């Protein structure tokens, strides 16, 4: 009649939490290493065809994530403005942007920070930069349909800028095909004709299906790893809601007119807080000469201390700031001469001032 109850030690129950813990660990550590092993299979195309696709800037609505990487430190505009200590010079950078284009001249890039964001709104006739940390809206020049302003986060704008400014000084060829954002793409190779350029080649990837430039990579001479790169990580072609692109400075925000002064975060040059600048030379040879403002000079003095000195043929000593694809020298009077060229060219420009 009697049955006995026995409660077995169910140590086997611990298998569940163990399995969960180990698989979570495995997924997080292994998943990122799964390589995208795909090959592209594109019809042959001529370099001229690729160039015309880049120049046509064929408008297509799209959204995606763009990653911009430089393998060397860049003196940021904020550094030169004196808002950051010189230590900001160290380290390589990777920036990620969410971008949208509506195919009708509007472009938006969004740089997400923890709990905030920096945005670029490009619309026909207006360009706005938005920074939520300072609640600042800065209006920029709407030149070239905003391509200048958006070149930092828009591979297509960057590519067309390179072709428009540099194709005359380059040997252009089709170097094959690649995969960008999981899509097959042509690659166009742009090799400087100038021998004193630091740049070995610029590789532009053009989406095989839509012919939209999707990646720009700059290789130093004698190097197979890009020193700078800007390209889509994810990319979807689809119509975009107009609400994504509209921007008017909100009530309570600080509004800055950046069309006359060089605003933080923009790549434009001119006169302003940083001082006066002018270009010398053309194409890959071109060199920028900056006569710094008083405020910038004092900041430079700090940076200069950490830079090596080189001697010029005339016997004077200058400070050299050097990266794989960009160099600058600082003269004793504070003038900065910089470009994607070797030091001989910089010194040559200096002696011609």
């Amino acid at each position, binding site marked *: 009649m009697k049955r006995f109850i026995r409660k077995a*030690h*169910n*140590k086997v*129950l*611990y298998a*569940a*939490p163990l399995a*969960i*813990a180990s698989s*979570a*660990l495995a997924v*997080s*550590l292994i998943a990122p290493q799964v390589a995208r092993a795909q090959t592209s299979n594109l019809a042959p195309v001529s370099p001229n065809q690729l160039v015309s696709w880049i120049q046509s800037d064929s408008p297509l609505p799209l959204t995606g994530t763009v990653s911009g990487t430089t393998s060397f430190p860049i003196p940021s505009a904020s550094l030169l403005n004196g808002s950051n200590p010189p230590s900001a010079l160290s380290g390589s950078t990777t920036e990620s942007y*969410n971008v949208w284009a509506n195919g009708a001249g509007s472009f938006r890039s*969004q740089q*997400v920070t*923890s*709990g*905030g*964001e920096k*945005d670029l*709104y490009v619309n026909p006739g207006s360009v*706005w930069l*938005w920074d*939520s*940390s*300072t*609640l600042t*809206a800065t209006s920029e020049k709407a030149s070239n349909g905003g391509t200048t302003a958006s070149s930092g986060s828009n591979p297509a704008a960057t590519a067309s800028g390179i072709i428009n400014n540099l194709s005359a000084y380059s040997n252009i060829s089709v170097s094959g095909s690649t995969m960008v954002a999981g899509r097959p793409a042509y690659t166009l190779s742009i090799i400087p004709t100038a021998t004193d350029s630091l740049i070995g080649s610029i590789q532009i990837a053009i989406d095989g299906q839509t012919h939209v430039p999707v990646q720009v990579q700059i290789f130093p001479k004698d190097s197979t790893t890009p020193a700078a790169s800007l390209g889509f990580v994810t990319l979807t072609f689809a119509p975009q*809601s107009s*609400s*994504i692109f*509209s*921007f008017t*400075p*909100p*009530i*309570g*925000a600080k509004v800055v007119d950046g069309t006359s002064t060089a605003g933080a975060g923009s790549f434009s040059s001119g006169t302003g807080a940083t001082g006066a600048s002018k270009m010398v030379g053309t194409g890959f040879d071109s060199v920028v000469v900056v006569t710094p403002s008083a405020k910038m000079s004092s900041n430079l003095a700090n940076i200069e201390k950490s830079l090596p000195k080189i001697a010029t043929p005339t016997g004077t000593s200058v400070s050299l700031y050097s990266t794989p694809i960009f160099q600058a020298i600082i003269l004793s009077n504070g003038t900065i001469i910089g470009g994607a060229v070797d030091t001989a060219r910089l010194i040559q420009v200096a002696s011609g001032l």
Partner: protein
Amino acid sequence: MLVSELSLLLRRRRTKVLLAMLFVAPWLMGFIIFQFGGGNGGHGPDFLTMATHNAVFLVLASVSSLLPLLFPLAVSLIASDSIAGEASLGTLRYLLITPVSRMKLLLYKLLTSLIFVVIACVGADISGLIAGVVFFPTGRVVLLSGQTTSFSHGVLLALLASILVAMSLVSVVGIGLAISTFTDIPVGAALGSLGMVILSEILSNITQVRGIWPLLPTNYWLSFADLFRNPIRLDVIGKDFINQGVWLVFGFSLAAARFLNKDITS
């Protein structure tokens, strides 16, 4: 039985004090910002800067400053108390010699803690909204993207944010419940689970262990901020959801493995 668990929890003076603390904090914060102005000291979400501009942002400012410590503290205390507290009072043995099964008791304890989390987050959110309306303007809400949306839509987003914050605390419930089954000292269990949260926050600042960041329970805690972008970003919220879910299931299965085997000697 859920009613019994909930009323037991809510009748405790300690629970009331915790909730009062969470509900008063936004008022304190609103008053300070009202008196002395905003500013986030260079870190933390930009909501602090924005709080003076709109009532809705006071909610977000207070929630994001409560999130790193006060919310985890409250949730740790409640979740860790669920088994260890009963054990320390000596009531656990009496609960277990009623015909209720251990699994069911554990499930109800889990549910009760989860409901507490929702009450705490939504309550702090609503309290913050009221404080915001008292102290600050109620016009159109500026999103992090610089675009604006209507006040009512902003309020809706703020309520959604509180649900997301509650979701982000689910991992603490899981961890707290698990630790709760390993000790008969509720304060020790609470410290243990709060310690896990702090450890996670420390690890998320050490770049050498970047590889395990996605596993940390606190890694996506600011995901609710993504509601205040245009377009709303769901990818991080989704990751948070999975992260929290995994921690909850892990915590509960560990708690069950321990509790179903446990010799009740308290």
